[in-house]
């Protein structure tokens, strides 16, 4: 018991080592938050292009080209590991440019997540009864207005649980940030471990932080689901 107390102090208190965790947490949260926002924006845009191309009878050239670009993006992003994407982004795309590592991480995870969000939202758009779209158009609303005010809100509600899962996956996936020497929670824990030679407490500490964060995110999504469900009562 006494031993555990000493190890706790060594790993978390001494030399302000807790700062590795709190600074790491800040990075993890900032990267996750902005990557989620970016992912949703990319995802919605791609989902709209893809479902437009699928539903209209004779898609014009612009839609066909956009749809083709989207499909390449989806294939590449979903067909390669996020870690490789992160390394390519850092060492190749931004290799000779001086940008913050956080920005590199946000872009990587946002672009990565966008591909998954796109397919989730697309399935949501497909799940909305076509009559909703037709009613909107028959009132004189244009395509974009009908999608924005009618179809996408309903699609979003239908896929919120799946989106929640994607956000949780993204939050945990940011743990590979250490590969570009960006100090997130995982990288912070690793740094402490290399200083104290104690594998247990830093790693369990990091695990606990992720667990709590994910629970928090889960609760947030559940609350949003409940709020969006008022119109079913």
């Amino acid at each position, binding site marked *: 018991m006494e031993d555990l107390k000493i190890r706790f102090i060594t790993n978390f208190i001494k030399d302000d080592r807790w700062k590795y965790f709190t600074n790491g947490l800040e990075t993890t949260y900032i990267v996750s938050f902005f990557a989620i926002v970016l992912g949703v924006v990319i995802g919605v845009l791609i989902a709209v292009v893809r479902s437009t191309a699928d539903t209209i*009878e004779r898609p014009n050239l612009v839609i066909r080209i956009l749809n083709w670009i989207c499909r390449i993006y989806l294939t590449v992003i979903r067909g390669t590991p996020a870690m490789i994407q992160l390394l390519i982004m850092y060492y190749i795309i931004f290799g000779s440019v001086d940008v913050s590592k956080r920005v590199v991480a946000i872009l990587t995870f946002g672009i990565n997540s966008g591909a998954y969000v796109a397919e989730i939202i697309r399935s949501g758009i497909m799940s909305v*009864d076509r*009559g*909703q779209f*037709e*009613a*909107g*158009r*028959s*009132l*004189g*609303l*244009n395509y974009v*207005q009908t999608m924005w*005010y*009618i179809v996408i*809100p*309903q699609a979003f*509600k239908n896929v919120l649980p799946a989106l929640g899962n994607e956000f949780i996956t993204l939050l945990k996936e940011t743990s590979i940030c250490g590969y570009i020497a960006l100090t997130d929670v995982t990288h912070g824990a690793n740094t402490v471990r290399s200083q104290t030679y104690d594998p247990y407490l830093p790693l369990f500490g990091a695990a606990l932080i992720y667990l709590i964060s994910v629970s928090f995110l889960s609760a947030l999504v559940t609350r949003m689901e409940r709020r969006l469900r*008022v*119109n*079913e*009562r």
Partner: protein
Amino acid sequence: MSAEKQVLFDIKGLCKSFGKVQVLDHIDAQIYKGEVVVIIGPSGSGKSTFLRSLNLLEMPTGGRILFEGKDMTDPRANINEYRQKIGMVFQHFNLFANLTILENMTLAPMKVLKKSKEEAEAEAMQLLKRVGLEEKANAYPAQLSGGQKQRIAIVRSLCMHPDVMLFDEPTSALDPEMVGEVLAVMRDLALEGMTMVIVTHEMGFAREVGSRVLFVDEGKIKEENTPAEFFDHPRHPRLVEFLSKVI
């Protein structure tokens, strides 16, 4: 037909095919201002497709549709401008599930006609009162009965001040006890002089309210007449057969 009767829809050689299946076969018809045209016919004969062509929810594959003298089927035409003036009521109501009743009714007036929220809401409340549903303004569609939903769908269209209203089997999805309340709203509209095109199986209503009845069969208009002649002295053998089955 008096000379000043204004043609609202002038339909010329309208054709529609889905792939190789021809659903509408060179339909010629006119809809005049103030008329109530009722369309009847067997299931699958193309009634919905015909009605949906009138606001271009189905793009014709042949022929032309002139609305108030202008060719809607011209590829350069602004479809949204036509649709504002053509109300549509669907069999399955299609109220916007994510919006309250009031929001259902004010969305298009605000976004399309650029009305202020206050103005759009005042007008919507007026119409809700007219169909006796003002206390449902803040309810969501899922909280209403079928008959209530369909009455809302009708007044939602009226918020756009359409020149004509299209009804595609507006009472077919309703429990029998709710059919009457929806037909009553439609009857009032007809009495006010609204131009209406109605696909329905309610023969009594067609006879009472219709100015003309069309029989659509195999993608063609096989007979058209005043309701009395249409029902009492049907001529086309297919119509005779159809009426003997449904009445």
